[in-house]
């Protein structure tokens, strides 16, 4: 005879029959009927219409029947509040029963009936039961307070039940203490005033610790959880609590173990991080965590989520336990994924070989999600453990060879990240990646591949064809792919302008005119404007050096991590979010890890403050392009540095463009460069339409600098005979951590250049070069950031030519006048030096003077402005001298032969219209010359002398 008979129904209608049976005189029939009612209730049938009949059965001395009726009442009282009142009398009577079991049952059931009218009657019996002589009744009553609080919090506070609960904390029976703790925690959790209700002091803590050893496992969880909210007054107290909590780590109940782990993790923050005790705790924490992983899969899952937090906080706890996280093929998928995550967190140089072998094994499993994550994990290992990068890359290549579609796609996504971490190291594999281009059908993989093509456009011979094939289906692509494609094409254009104008035009048109996606449109417009106003700036922006990615990107942010450590074992630890982020109606009080007080022991820094990353590699930030940041570091007063990109044109010297270099740009580009197109609001109109050739030839609007850059790209040499001083050593290797820099200044096609040779005389690679100029007398600023893309290997030399333009905002009078202060940065350090710019660079070609004007000026300038110099070691004929100087815009106005000497009267004009007059005395056959210089601006004399020396000696 089993209970399943209660589920059978009869023809007449179930409810009708039950009603009859409930009102029967026979006790046995009554009981059977109540059982049937309960049976219907458990399977979700509505039997609430029987309420009065069931309540009638309540007055009975049969405990089982009573229990069943109580069960029914709890379920349905809410829907029948008026009827429920009928039961109140019986409850109140039962609360005075001699049998503690019945007293407890009554108070317990009353608390579950969520009807206001009943709760009023509950207060008196509850107060009595809280003081009951029997601890069983007491502990039941404690929970009842929490129930009542849920229904009517005000009533609980008014009636003083909370104080009564607090009194129970010091009860002699551990079960009562545990239940009081549980009730108080639930109340303080639900109460708007938060934990104020339940503050622990050292005395109650002692009580709780005693009860901890004796109460049930569930009680231990409640006690441990409230201990975790307590902040000990000093290290010693924390240590003594930990001492008494550690035995809980050996409990069979996983929840007890995890709650104990929480207490220890929290209190460890208060201890001397170098002390022995912390070492002991770290050693003790590892085995119980490992044990949790041999429990049921659900327990494993929660444990793994928590271990994920724990290893981020204290990596040393499980650092030797890598193998327990190896995945078994029949683990549930949610366990597998978590294990993978932790394997990567624990990966280090020492165990990377094992980890990689495992990951490779997983990548051939059946479960697609798991395989994908395994492939990603290989990429993360490469980024985390630098020494393993090469191994990871070759593993990924092996996986790509399997040609399994999703493996290939996933591998390409992670290889992109590897490229971002180790630029210029593994590009040799690009060819292999390109072979798989056709199989990519997922947006992320396509986007990654496009990024790789764009980033390395200069090394992929058919990059333009590849991108073109993508552009053909542009409109069908996912927006992520479209954005990436747009950027990649612009990169390609900036790197290889030949033959790619059409491609860039079509992409810009597609993104700005045929797209509804605002992100895409905006990005398209920005590129378009950049390209049309200032391609050099576009280059700066689009091809800017990207910050390297690091494995830290997937770590939980330290303050959040600290908060989550306080919630170990709870839902927050499973979701890795603070409870305020997801628990309804939760007060926003944040838990924080205790801070080690300064007074306790050594003066080590507080462990809870996250360590600031050393700031040497990444220069702190102003929202300006990267090279400007250096200025900040130098604390040079640079002024609004952006200006050099925004308005270089007005600063440009009024020179005529050398149109030969422009011709190379071809027709497509000049319209692109045309800023004079009709309106500014619609850059879309710039392209395609006929360019108004009227007043302005298109190129005049473009800053001269841009041509220089493009000229550079095309490798246009300068045919001019202008003198270039030999390079001098600006930075000496022994003083500058192995970096040697030689350089000079030159002028080509009326553009100024700083020609430099970087030599790496150190053992290690150098990279990340950048340059910054301080303000100077002629306002020279770099046109573009220093472009040294590949890292400089040991004993390698790279030549770089940095174009300079004159910017009025960058002018400041220097002493000496032509002094230029320069800062060079690389991945190792920042170096400073100053160099003298030869003044002749600034002499204009129209510096020649009328003889009379010269004479007049010479007279007008007071004689104290005259400076005399002696030039030695010049073995040149007068004519040769004249010719050399003339090439550098120092013109001879007149020449006289006096007493066997040649007198040369010379003039020059600087770009700022300062006129300088010079008298050079040459005795044929004598290498010594006399030079007299006169100018209204007296300071130039020394620089002019310097220039003469350079030109005549060169």
């Amino acid at each position, binding site marked *: 005879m089993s209970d399943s008979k209660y589920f059978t129904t009869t023809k007449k209608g179930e409810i009708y029959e039950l009603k009859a049976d409930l009102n029967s005189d026979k006790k046995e029939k009554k009981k059977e009927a109540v059982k049937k009612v309960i049976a219907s209730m458990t399977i979700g049938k509505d039997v609430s219409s029987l309420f009065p009949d069931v309540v009638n059965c309540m007055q009975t001395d049969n405990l089982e029947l009573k229990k069943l009726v109580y069960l029914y009442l709890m379920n349905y009282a809410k829907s029948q509040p008026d009827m429920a009142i009928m039961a109140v009398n019986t409850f109140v009577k039962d609360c005075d029963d001699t049998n503690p079991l019945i007293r407890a049952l009554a108070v317990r059931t009353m608390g579950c009936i969520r009807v206001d009218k009943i709760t009023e009657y509950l207060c008196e019996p509850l107060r009595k039961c809280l003081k009951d002589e029997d601890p069983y009744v007491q502990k039941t009553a404690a929970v009842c307070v929490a129930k009542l609080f849920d229904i009517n919090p005000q009533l609980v506070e008014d009636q003083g039940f909370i104080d009564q609960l607090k009194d129970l904390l010091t009860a002699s029976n551990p079960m009562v203490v545990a239940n009081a703790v549980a009730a108080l925690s639930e109340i303080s959790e639900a109460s708007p005033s938060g934990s104020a209700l339940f503050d622990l002091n050292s005395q109650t803590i002692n009580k709780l610790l005693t009860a901890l050893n004796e109460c049930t496992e569930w009680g231990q969880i409640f006690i441990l959880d409230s201990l975790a909210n307590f902040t000990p007054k000093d290290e010693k107290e924390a240590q003594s609590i930990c001492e008494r909590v550690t035995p809980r780590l050996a409990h069979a109940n996983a929840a007890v173990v995890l709650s104990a782990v929480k207490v220890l993790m929290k209190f460890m923050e208060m201890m001397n991080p170098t002390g022995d005790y912390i070492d002991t705790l770290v050693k003790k924490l590892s085995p119980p965590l490992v044990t949790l992983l041999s429990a049921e899969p659900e327990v494993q899952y929660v444990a793994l989520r928590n271990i994920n937090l724990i290893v981020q906080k204290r990596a040393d706890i499980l650092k030797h336990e890598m193998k*327990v996280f190896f995945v*078994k093929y029949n683990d549930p998928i949610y366990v597998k994924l978590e294990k993978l995550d932790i394997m990567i967190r624990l990966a280090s140089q020492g165990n990377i070989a094992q980890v990689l072998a495992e990951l490779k094994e997983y990548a051939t499993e059946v479960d697609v999600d798991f395989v994908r994550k395994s492939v990603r994990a290989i990429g993360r290992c490469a980024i985390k453990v630098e020494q393993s990068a090469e191994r990871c890359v070759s593993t990924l290549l092996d996986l790509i060879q399997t040609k399994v579609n999703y493996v290939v796609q996933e591998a390409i996504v992670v290889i992109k990240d590897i490229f971002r971490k180790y630029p210029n190291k593994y590009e040799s594999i690009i060819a292999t990646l390109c072979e798989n281009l056709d199989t990519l059908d997922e947006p992320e993989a396509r986007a990654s591949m496009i990024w790789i093509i764009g980033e390395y456009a200069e090394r992929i011979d058919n990059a333009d064809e590849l991108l073109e094939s993508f552009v053909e289906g542009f409109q069908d692509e996912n927006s992520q792919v479209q954005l990436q494609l747009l950027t990649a094409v612009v990169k390609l254009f900036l790197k290889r302008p030949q033959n790619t104008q059409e491609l860039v035009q079509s992409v810009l048109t597609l993104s700005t005119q045929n797209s509804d996606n605002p992100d895409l449109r905006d990005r398209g417009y920005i590129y378009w404007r950049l390209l049309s106003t200032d391609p050099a700036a576009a280059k700066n922006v689009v091809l800017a050096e990207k910050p390297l990615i690091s494995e830290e990107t997937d770590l939980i942010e330290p303050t959040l991590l600290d908060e989550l450590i306080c919630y170990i074992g709870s839902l927050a630890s499973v979701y890795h979010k603070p409870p305020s982020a997801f628990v309804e109606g939760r007060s926003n009080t944040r838990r924080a890890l205790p801070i080690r007080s300064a007074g306790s022991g050594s003066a080590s820094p507080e462990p809870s403050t996250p360590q600031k990353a050393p700031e040497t590699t990444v220069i702190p930030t102003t929202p300006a392009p990267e090279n400007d940041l250096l200025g900040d570091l130098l604390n040079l007063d640079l002024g609004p540095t952006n200006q050099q990109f925004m308005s270089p044109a007005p600063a440009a010297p009024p020179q005529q463009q050398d149109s030969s270099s422009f011709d190379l740009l071809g027709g497509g580009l000049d319209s692109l460069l045309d800023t004079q197109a009709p309106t500014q609001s619609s850059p879309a109109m710039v392209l395609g339409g006929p360019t108004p050739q009227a007043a302005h030839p298109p190129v005049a609007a473009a800053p001269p600098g841009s041509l220089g850059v493009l000229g550079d790209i095309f490798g246009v040499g300068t045919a001019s005979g202008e003198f270039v001083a030999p390079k001098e050593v600006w930075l000496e290797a022994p003083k500058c951590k192995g970096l040697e820099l030689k350089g000079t200044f030159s002028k080509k096609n009326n553009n100024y250049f700083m020609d430099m040779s970087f030599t790496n005389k150190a053992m290690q690679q150098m990279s990340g070069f950048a340059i910054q100029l301080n303000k100077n007398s002629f306002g020279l600023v770099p046109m573009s950031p220093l472009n040294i893309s590949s890292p400089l290997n040991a004993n390698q030399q790279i030549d770089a030519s940095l174009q300079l333009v004159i910017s009025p905002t960058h002018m400041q009078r220097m002493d000496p006048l032509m002094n230029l202060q320069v800062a060079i940065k690389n991945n190792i350090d920042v170096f400073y030096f100053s160099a003298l710019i030869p003044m002749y660079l600034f002499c204009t070609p129209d510096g020649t003077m009328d003889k009379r004007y010269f004479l007049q000026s010479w007279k007008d300038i007071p004689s104290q402005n005259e400076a005399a110099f002696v030039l030695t070691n010049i073995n040149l004929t007068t004519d040769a001298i004249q010719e050399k100087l003339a090439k550098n815009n120092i013109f001879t106005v007149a020449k006289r032969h006096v007493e066997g000497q040649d007198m040369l009267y010379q003039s020059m004009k600087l770009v700022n219209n300062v006129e300088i007059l010079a008298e050079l005395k040459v005795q044929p056959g004598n290498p010594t010359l006399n030079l007299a210089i006169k100018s209204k601006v007296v300071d130039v004399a020394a620089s002019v002398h310097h220039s003469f020396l350079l030109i005549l000696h060169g």
Partner: protein
Amino acid sequence: MISSLFIINASGDIFMEKHWKSVISRSVCDYFFEAQEKASSNEDVPAVIATPHHYLISIYHKQLYFVAVVQTEVSPLFVIEFLHRIINTFEDYFSDCTETSIKENYVVVYELLEEMLDNGFPLATESNILKELIKPPNILRTAVNMVTGSSNVSDTLPTGQLSNVPWRRSGVKYTNNEAYFDVIEEVDCIIDKMGSTVFAEIQGYVDSSVKLSGMPDLTMSFVNHRLLDDVSFHPCVRYKRWESERVLSFVPPDGNFRLLSYHIGASNLTAIPVYVRPNITIREGSGKFELSIGPKQTMGKLVEDVVVTSDFPKQVLNMSLTPNQGTYSFDPVNKTLRWEVGKINPQKQIPTIKGTISLQSGMPPPEANPAINVQFKIQQLAISGVKVNRLDMYGEKYKPFKGVKYITKAGKFQVRT
């Protein structure tokens, strides 16, 4: 704390619900069904599911889902442990925990659930206390109750409920006083293609069956307690004594219980008791399968109940094999091969199975070979070398029968091919 419990069978029927706070509509389970649909197999349903107002924390046990509903920030492990406790209790009461056994005993189930949890707080979860409150059903008692009209619900307060040994009731009496302990060790390991061990560990348990009168106080000591550095105890074990003397000292619960579980990591593990030599080649259209299994380090003990199972990829249609020992079956629906080897007799030839695999034509061959699962049992051996030294009883005068049995089993024993 736990608000409600739903028990759901494999076909998705909620056949049992219990609410400890206010009633929560069973429609909340729709979120669970949603997650279940997404999961590729029954085991893969996530243990914690968030819904807009509740959290569903579930465990999967023998084709049944136990889904607990919680509303506040609780410890999910607390809930999971509690759900496992419910299953243990049902197994204890009804000998197994299945849909049939729950339906047949629903009144007891309901009474038990009510007794185990109050307002979401665990109330009485110790089996001996519950058994005093609610008598386990048996045919004889049902018959007696029918005649006498008495019930299986006790009307007195259980004695263990408040003592500081809540796991034991007083006044226990047996005519034969006996205490038996089983030291069970499960070997979890992963062996790679080459036959070398990727990972291995031992999960050990000491399961006890103690039927002793009165309030006996037992001590158990081990020959090599050094091995036991990662242990979890039943609450009855006095931790202090273990810490200082490495002796298990306890007042045992009455009946069956797990006294101790321990974990021995890779560093202490000396031997893997069996070796497996698989040789699987799968090409397009057909494949070959050969596998042999033999004893390795078994200290001269017999390896018994050997079963080899393997899940093949979906391309495999059938297998035609010949074992030289035991029987095999291949389930073409689940693609599972199961070879029941039986005993391995070291004197006889090594158990081997070989034959061909037929594959669906036109399908590409699978990327990887299937992993192989091995089960076995070795009596009278604890592979780690753990050994009970002494078992003593204090507090009672009689002389009990004592016995310790050792057994080594395969846990998650996997061979990659």
